[in-house]
């Protein structure tokens, strides 16, 4: 099964703020345990007690880890698509193909007001805009062919101009010419993670996402949603395995390691998901409990993979594309 950890870096009230050394220690422990990826939360939606914004934190974490996937949340309201595509393409090169972008399909209630859009967006505008935005970002990530860079000093050919492609996107909300001024990623494109899907977002996600995070519910309802998403992916012409559907689980220390492992195993056996997204709050105690008790319990039952098969996040997730497939 696939295992992601979502780390909410904003500290709970009264807790000491997680500094870089504490966060990096936790991510290295998750790496040692074979976790596929750690997703860093981010919100420009209101005050945060964390000193860090997610993409900058991801870049720093990339230099102190080797294998684990690193995903940062970044909002479609806070960034222009060209700038966001550059940031993540660069993060993917810094991490040697381990980066992902987590885009939420839910509109932050306060965010637009801090980004010179006091009127906000209607839900349908936000959805159409987000879909267009995702298409632009994924298109920009593919602007350079994998073999475009020649580095031919004597011939004076740095790259092959035939292998650099303009995007020339002109849409309802954006027009972006391209190409990106960042090279192609070692895993072809950073991984796209989508969450907070409403009914109307499901087809967008099935068309574009590499990983979909679903809220937890009963095993039966999870199964229904899982099958539905895989069907939609096939209808969009994709291999159902090209979209990984992870069920989000809030980790409650009181449940005990055995009960948590039971819960995951039951869901997995029912084929209601491709794996789990464990949501951890930024409490020192929660991080410690998870590493010391839950991860060993999951490993004992063979639920977490032993080591990493490849070096890119796509290879951890058994997704097609680039790197060491």
């Amino acid at each position: 099964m696939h295992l992601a950890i979502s780390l909410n870096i904003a500290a709970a009230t009264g807790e000491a703020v997680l500094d870089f050394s504490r966060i990096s220690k936790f991510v290295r422990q998750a790496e040692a345990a074979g976790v596929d990826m750690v997703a860093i939360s981010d919100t420009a939606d209101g005050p945060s007690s964390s000193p860090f914004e997610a993409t900058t934190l991801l870049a720093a974490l990339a230099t102190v880890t080797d294998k684990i996937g690193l995903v940062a949340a970044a909002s479609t309201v806070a960034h222009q698509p060209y700038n966001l595509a550059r940031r993540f393409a660069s993060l993917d090169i810094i991490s040697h193909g381990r980066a992902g972008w987590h885009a939420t399909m839910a509109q932050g209630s306060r965010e637009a007001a801090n980004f010179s859009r006091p009127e906000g967006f209607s839900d349908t505008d936000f959805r159409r805009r987000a879909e267009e935005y995702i298409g632009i970002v994924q298109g920009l990530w593919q602007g350079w062919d994998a073999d475009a860079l020649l580095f031919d000093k004597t011939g004076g050919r740095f790259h092959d101009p035939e292998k650099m492609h303009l995007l020339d996107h002109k849409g309802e909300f954006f027009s972006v010419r391209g190409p990106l001024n960042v090279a192609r990623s070692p895993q072809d494109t950073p991984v796209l993670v989508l969450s907070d899907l409403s009914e109307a977002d499901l087809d967008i996600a099935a068309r574009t996402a590499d990983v979909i995070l679903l809220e937890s519910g009963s095993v039966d309802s999870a199964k229904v949603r899982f099958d539905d998403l895989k069907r939609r992916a096939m209808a969009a012409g994709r291999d159902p395995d090209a979209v990984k559907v992870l069920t989000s689980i809030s980790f409650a220390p009181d449940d005990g390691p055995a009960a948590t492992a039971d819960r995951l195993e039951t869901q997995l056996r029912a084929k209601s998901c491709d794996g789990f997204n464990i949501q951890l709050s930024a409490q020192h105690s929660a991080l410690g409990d998870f590493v010391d008790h839950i991860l060993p319990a999951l490993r004992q039952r063979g639920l977490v993979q032993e080591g990493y098969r490849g070096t890119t996040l796509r290879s951890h997730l058994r997704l097609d594309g680039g790197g060491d497939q």
Partner: protein
Amino acid sequence: MTARMKLGAFLWATGHHIAAWRHPKAHVTAGIDIDHYIQLARTAEAAKFDMVFCEDAAGLREANVGIASQTSRSIGFEPISLLSALAVQTSRIGLVSTASTSYNEPYGLARTFLSLDHLSGGRAGWNLVTSASPIEAANFGSTGLKPHADRYERAREFAEVVTGLWHGKASGHDGQSFSVRDPLGLPRSPQGAPVMVQAGASDVGRDLAARTADVVFTAAQTFEEAKAFYDDLKGRMATYGREPDDIKIMPGVSPVVAETEAEAREKHEELQALIPDDVGVALLSSYLSISDLWRYPIDGPLPELPESEGMKSRQALVVEQSRRDGLSIRQLARHFAGARGHWRIVGTAAQVADELQAWFEGGAADGFNVMPSYFPGELDAFATLVVPELQRRGLFRRDYEGRTLREHLGLKRPA
């Protein structure tokens, strides 16, 4: 203690020389190699530089794909992510990046730089620029470039919002270009606020700098030019209630240094010979904001130019130099391709130190932004040859005294 000069290491992929990437010893894969940048930052830190500096553009540098493919400038790291990686791989050196006010929002930019500042323990700086490139504009839905004055009005409001957010200003902003409702939410900067850097040299650019900048990067070819700029900018500061010492003025300098002068000249010629004519002319054209320079005879003089909405101050600099030195288009192109209009010194460590000392002690500079012609070789050469010479002369620190970039630069901590 006598005043010490400030030094920046301007990192740019394979090097500042347009043909740097073709040099046999240049690290040609710099634009996709994070370890290369970590090594450069550590070299600069070991030499006690105040900061490393990264430029930025949100688009290709060159519209002509054939020309672009003969340079290494079409791909590279996005600088905020790059510096965030460097932040935890270094411990003392300042980390400054360019970011444009044209295609960002102040709330997002303020958050990102403050996060970099926290990651680095108070070593971050933002170099404010406005974007003049139509290539960039086309990536942001823009139908045309904004006039120079409008870009700077937006930049002024942008800088005001960002500094307000960094200083923990609680009330919202509702202005001409931007509206922001909430404070940032992130804790205050370890150095009070990230350092504000600017580079615009036009009249409105100078006023904006006099009002808001902590550091100003500038391009000057001669002592007189640098001195005039220095005096003018420092003279404007009183209007805004600031002391001359509140801004550090750092001209760009592209040194080619070696054990002997002959060796240095040879190194320089080796690089110049690697510049293809079409690349040199294209680069010169973009600096002059004109598109048809290739129509004119390459060994003839520069034609009369219309005033552009692009980089006004840069254009004047090129024109003045071509008339003064009677340079042909080819000569001018090679000259500019070499150091991009910045000051170049070719010589021994003592000769380079003499020149830097003359500008510094003559009141034309508070320090220098060093632009090595290729990496890593020319940064190494400056660090091992010129820095010890400056230290011997008491012109540069032997070790860091502070922890934050503001402390390195001797800047006041904002209230």
